[in-house]
């Protein structure tokens, strides 16, 4: 019966440092250097979970990242982490691990009844049922299916830990620290290259750590010692190369949480490194494959190499007897080491002829060898009791553990991320890398060369070649192998599937409970392509991504289809190589730091003076001020009245500002704006509209001519970046003959709008020395003045429709000037007004803004058609005249007045002509709404079919989301001061 024990001596564990940990609430003990898996085995806990579909008892299969079975939920509260494989978790004191898919416990699991219904759950059964009785029935079944699936349970609590990201660069990156990787690193380092070695394991050494050879261990420590002496070498253990991206970008996940479950302040739990390597050496080794036979999922059935690792690295061995079943040479390594540790070992070898060297050594080590013999089945329910052999020797062997080896699969994953398909190699019955990309090199088991000496010599060569590719050609002497290192011959007899007669389930993908029979069913139904096989059976789609199962499955399917494995192909290898925390990918760019805040030069003032802010794109904008009220609804009305009746000041620093200059500046603007700018007089501003090439409105703003060849352009806040890039595009790629320079001044200048009938008075108080008379600074005029030696630009523009000015000044002075104006004009009752009022005032005036400029509307839709130059050429002129863009019944800009005093207009309401049925898409919709202080009613801007042709008509504004319909009248969008008397006052 399956049983394991800890040996008194040996292994790499530190017996002086004990760790206490909990498994399903039970207190267990282990040592530093243990993994959760080795510690549990040492405690003879072999049944650690249940499979997710059939709820079969499961134990550890492997000792590494490929583990399909031994998954746990570790940590508590915000640190709860499901689906962690016990073979990769380093034991730490106080670790809490819980089993999955088992209730109340793995040993006694209620859901085990599932296995009775097992015959139903063959591949694809979901697609064949749960359809009835009615159409929507799936909605009834789905919750049960969902509950049953899903492995471990996560937590809703936020993750308390910190993650960081980092950029790094090097000449040569070596992935994997086995003999091949160590040799490559050393050889590359000797050329003077900047070398990084990355190893997912906690120690460097790879497969060497699983051996018990003193010479090899000596070699390992000497090489590492020499590497540590190089300033140009970075050794990263606990760092997994997760993916390789275009441009030789390698995503490395560095784990820092191994020994401290709760990191200190500012200390990252994990770090994602984006490393750019000039060249890469793959030394990722190979993963052993299970054999497919009945009940091969019983706890105690493991990979032979895993038994060897547990023995040599963790000093954990099967109680007394072990049965090794293999089709190749490597399993003998495990067999000999186990025998040497006093375990009685029998070996069933599918091959009838075995290398004499092995047979002799076996004989002297006292192993029972059964050539030409495989395994048909294992007996035992929650562990193995005995193995039933078949073939030349149909013996029954009592044992505590079964070590299986179906051959080796090179870890080719990373070599394939760039899109290069791996290929099948007959001689070792394995998938090996296809051609490597330029700058990529490989050595050791990953390339399918399974020998120590060759791993080192080829690794050393790869290191030198990689350095040379990165431009470092200095001589570097090859790395010498350990004394007496040799390449044992490697032979394998591929056997992919169990002898037919046995009836128990034979698993291919342990985690997803995919059996050989499921593959047969997929074949019957025609899901032949490896991709269909995968998707139909979910094979290889688990947390292990099929590291142990893919090749066996492909081979079985190839066999059923009777095509050579080479033609079957493989599924696509995708990053990440092993699961990686989402938090690590996001790093610190989350929460408050998710995206930068863009702040006006007046931000601090707003904050200190009762402003409530609103996110507008990246900008933080002063929405309304508490002097006017504590809700936006209350405040904006007060702020509007202030502007209509007296004077207010508002922050317009967010406007895009662009410096346009050069001999051809006027010509340039004349081309990008629909209206003329060539003849704009110096000292004058003009409102302009730009189209995109497609003839749709891109942006609007005012542009001022400062001198003949110098203009000051403003854009909308939202489009500033787009417009800037667009102007640069035109100048740098299309109109390269134009001598024009554009520079963004958005950050250089702050701006404020001083608006209201009393605005001139206000500014006069602020700038007593300047002549602000209507003559000297008329509407659309520009005047540069100085105050305390600081240049201030006064633009007589109005967004609100009142007499108004924009005051622009260098950013650092904006707050000070703002305060100066507030003080100077205090007698007039000047106060700040925010974004909400700003937007409402412009609605009353009928100025279009973001909600109307949504890339769907034309000049004519917005009632601006008249602006466009008839004769001159401008961007968008041609496509603007496309048939449908000129159609008379297009939706175009109108104003609306609410006709039902006690009710409300709402943005997003759909418009209908009075009396017509309220359905379909209507004749338009409301873009922006406000309460009009001037008119004492709700008004809105809207787009309506045919536009102002319908002026005066009564229409219906439907808002079915609130079961509302209100009556409104179509009016001019210019609700106030149509003839513009106030502007020119």
């Amino acid at each position: 019966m399956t049983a394991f024990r800890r040996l008194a001596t040996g292994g790499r564990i530190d017996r002086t440092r004990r760790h206490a940990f909990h498994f399903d609430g039970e207190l267990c003990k282990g040592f530093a250097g243990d993994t959760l898996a080795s510690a549990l085995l040492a405690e003879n806990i072999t049944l650690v979970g249940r499979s997710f579909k059939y709820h079969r008892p499961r134990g550890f299969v492997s000792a590494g990242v490929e583990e399909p079975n031994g998954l746990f939920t570790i940590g508590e509260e915000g640190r709860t982490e499901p689906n962690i494989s016990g073979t990769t978790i380093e034991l730490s004191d106080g670790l809490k691990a819980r089993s999955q898919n088992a209730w109340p416990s793995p040993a006694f699991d209620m859901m085990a009844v599932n296995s009775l219904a097992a015959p139903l759950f063959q591949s694809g059964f979901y697609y064949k049922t749960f359809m009835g009785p009615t159409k929507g029935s799936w909605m009834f079944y789905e919750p049960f299916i969902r509950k049953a699936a899903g492995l471990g349970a996560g937590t809703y609590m936020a993750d308390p830990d910190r993650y960081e990201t980092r950029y790094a660069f090097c000449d040569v990156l070596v992935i994997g620290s086995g003999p091949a990787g160590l040799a490559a690193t050393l050889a590359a380092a000797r050329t003077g290259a900047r070398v990084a070695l990355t190893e997912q394991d906690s120690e460097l050494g790879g497969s060497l750590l699983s051996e018990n050879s003193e010479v090899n261990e000596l070699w390992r420590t000497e090489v590492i010692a020499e590497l540590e002496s190089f300033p140009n070498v970075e050794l990263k253990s606990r760092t997994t190369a997760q993916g390789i991206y275009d441009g030789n970008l390698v995503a490395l996940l560095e784990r820092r949480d191994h020994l401290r479950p709760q990191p200190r302040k500012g200390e990252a739990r994990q770090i994602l490194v984006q490393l750019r390597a000039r060249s890469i050496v793959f030394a990722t080794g190979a993963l052993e494959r299970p054999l497919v036979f009945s009940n091969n999922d019983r706890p105690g059935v493991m990979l032979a190499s895993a038994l060897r690792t547990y023995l040599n690295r963790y000093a954990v061995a099967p109680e007394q007897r072990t049965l090794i079943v293999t089709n190749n040479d490597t399993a003998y390594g495990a067999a000999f080491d186990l025998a040497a540790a006093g375990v009685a070992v029998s070996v069933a070898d599918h091959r009838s002829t075995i290398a004499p060297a092995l047979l002799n050594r076996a004989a002297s080590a006292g192993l029972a060898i059964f050539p030409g013999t495989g395994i048909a089945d294992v007996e035992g329910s929650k562990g193995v009791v005995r193995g039933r052999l078949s073939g030349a020797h149909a013996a029954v062997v009592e044992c505590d553990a079964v070590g299986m080896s179906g051959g080796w699969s090179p870890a080719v994953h990373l070599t394939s991320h760039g899109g290069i398909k791996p290929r099948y190699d007959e001689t070792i019955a394995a998938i090996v890398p296809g051609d490597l990309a330029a700058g990529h090199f490989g050595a050791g088991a990953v390339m399918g060369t399974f020998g120590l000496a060759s791993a080192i010599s080829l690794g050393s060569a790869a290191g030198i070649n990689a350095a040379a590719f990165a431009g470092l050609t200095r001589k570097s002497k090859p790395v010498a192998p350990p004394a007496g290192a040799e390449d044992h011959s490697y032979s394998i007899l591929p056997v992919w599937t169990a002898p037919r007669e046995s009836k128990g389930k034979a698993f291919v993908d342990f985690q997803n409970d995919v059996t050989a029979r499921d593959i047969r069913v997929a074949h019957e139904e025609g899901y032949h392509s490896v991709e269909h096989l995968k998707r139909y059976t979910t094979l290889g789609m688990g947390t292990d991504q099929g590291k142990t199962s893919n090749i066996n499955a492909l081979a079985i399917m190839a066999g059923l289809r009777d095509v050579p494995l080479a033609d079957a192909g493989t599924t696509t290898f995708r990053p990440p190589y092993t699961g990686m925390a989402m938090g690590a990918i996001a790093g610190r760019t989350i929460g408050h730091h998710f995206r930068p805040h863009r702040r006006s030069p007046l931000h601090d003032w707003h904050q200190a003076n009762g402003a409530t802010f609103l996110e507008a794109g990246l900008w933080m904008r002063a929405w309304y001020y508490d002097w006017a009220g504590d809700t936006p609804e209350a405040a904006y009305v007060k702020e509007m009245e202030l502007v209509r009746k007296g004077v207010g000041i508002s922050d317009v620093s967010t406007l895009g500002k662009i410096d346009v200059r050069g001999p051809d500046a006027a010509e340039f603007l004349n081309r990008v704006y629909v209206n003329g700018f060539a003849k704009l007089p110096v000292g004058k501003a003009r409102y302009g509209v730009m189209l995109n090439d497609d003839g749709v409105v891109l942006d609007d703003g005012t542009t001022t001519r400062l001198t003949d060849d110098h203009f000051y352009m403003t854009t909308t806040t939202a489009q500033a970046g787009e417009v800037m890039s667009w102007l640069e595009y035109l100048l740098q790629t299309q109109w390269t003959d134009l001598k024009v320079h554009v520079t963004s001044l958005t950050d250089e200048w702050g701006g404020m709008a001083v608006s209201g009938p009393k605005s001139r008075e206000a500014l006069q108080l602020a700038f007593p020395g300047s002549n602000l008379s209507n003559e000297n600074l008329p509407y659309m005029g520009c005047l540069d003045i100085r105050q305390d030696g600081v240049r201030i630009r006064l633009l007589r523009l109005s967004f609100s429709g009142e007499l108004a000015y924009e005051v622009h000044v260098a950013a650092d002075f904006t707050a000070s000037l703002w305060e100066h104006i507030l003080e100077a004009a205090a007698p007039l009752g000047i106060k700040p007004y925010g974004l909400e009022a700003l937007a409402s005032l412009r609605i009353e005036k009928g100025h279009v803004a973001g909600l109307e400029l949504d890339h769907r509307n034309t000049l004519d839709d917005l009632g601006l058609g008249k602006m466009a130059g008839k004769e001159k050429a401008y961007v968008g002129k041609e496509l603007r005249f496309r048939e449908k863009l000129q159609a008379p019944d297009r939706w175009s800009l109108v104003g609306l007045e609410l006709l039902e005093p006690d009710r409300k207009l709402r943005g997003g309401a759909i418009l209908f002509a009075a009396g017509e049925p309220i359905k379909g898409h209507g004749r338009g919709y409301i873009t922006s709404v406000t309460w009009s202080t001037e008119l004492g009613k709700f008004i809105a801007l809207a787009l309506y079919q045919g536009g102002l042709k319908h002026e005066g008509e009564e229409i219906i504004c439907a808002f079915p989301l609130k079961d509302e319909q209100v009556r409104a009248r179509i009016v001019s969008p210019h609700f106030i001061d149509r003839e513009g008397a106030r502007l020119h006052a």
Partner: protein
Amino acid sequence: MPSRRYSAFALARHAVSPDLPWPRAWRSPEPKKSYDVVIIGGGGHGLATAYYLAKNHGIKNVAVVERSYIGSGNVGRNTTLIRSNYVIDGNTQFFEHSLKLWEGLSHDLNFNCMVSQRGQIVLAVSPGQLDTFARRGNIMRLNGIDAEILDRGEVIKLLPYLDYSKDARFPIWGGILQQRAGTVRHDAVAWGYARAADMHGIDIIENCEVTGFVIEDGKATGIETSRGRINAGRLGIAVAGHTSHVARLAGLRVPVESHILQAFVTEPVKPMVHHVISWGAELFYLSQSDKGGMVFGGHIDGFNTYTQRGQFPKIQSVAECAVSLLPFMSRLRLLRHWGGIMDMAPDGSPFICRTPIGNLYLNGGWCYQGFKATPASGWTFAHTIANDSEHELNRCYALDRFEKGGELDDYGIGNWTYKQ
């Protein structure tokens, strides 16, 4: 030959007699010399088109030719969101028709596509955005489509695990819910349509790449393929990301650019997220698959490519969205990520139409909305091919609409393929 119908009974029968073989879902026939109709592209749209040609129009001498394995394209790699929340006249009706077809699809195909109407919530991050959502919702209601507007409090009730703290960079102002929206098991759609089409005698020919067209005096009469020449009375192109490439073989230059969109899945966990969640701060959407993985995605990488590999900066920004909106995602582990090639149209809306070449029809320009469109796309494309004229549902999806200014820009993004 045993009945090919799927049912609990059939399952039971196979359970008791394990050696009773299941019938093939679809045959893999050798291409015939000639067909009445050949559909190019064995994705969702191509297969659906073939199925509706047989079912709605009685045209059964049909082949679907697929370069690789069916479902190898976007239908097999998308984030499976279905919805019908469109504002533009034409889009609204088309996508609602699609959603109605989804609702009956498993029954219709006798194949469980796991149509899960778990509801989609789109989150607004500003009052202005809430207004644009309101317009959307109102249009939906006025066209008989379900929609509810949610205030912040209602969102908190439905999705208590989002970040509502003061640290949230973009506070949630509310959202819009379509309860009938949801997800569908993507591969099942390809397989279900293929199997149902096959039952009508339609040939599904995999590993058969179209390499050229046979065009005689302005009419398409056949195709050259990697498996030889196939003659056809009529030809339909439904190759999504490869639209330009295949159309060019017929001498057509089309308003489509191929861009990569990435998708992501975490390790499977027990049910946590019971809706489809979309975010208004940056394009981001997430749902939990029945297998338990969080399936999510963002915007396209932003430059044209035919590689199915994404760039890391986009991967990062999507992860940032995920963790910022759903802080608990931080500890979940990314299992796999991949990409698909999308046929981006300037206005983000598709083409289902005749072409300047006789007997040649085009279905493309799907951007990231093509999966939800699959049934209606097949339905209307079949109609267009069968009748050599557009169905009223796809009349607005003409190839030459830009010449006339007939853009259908549902989100007001503007005519840029790399922004849509």
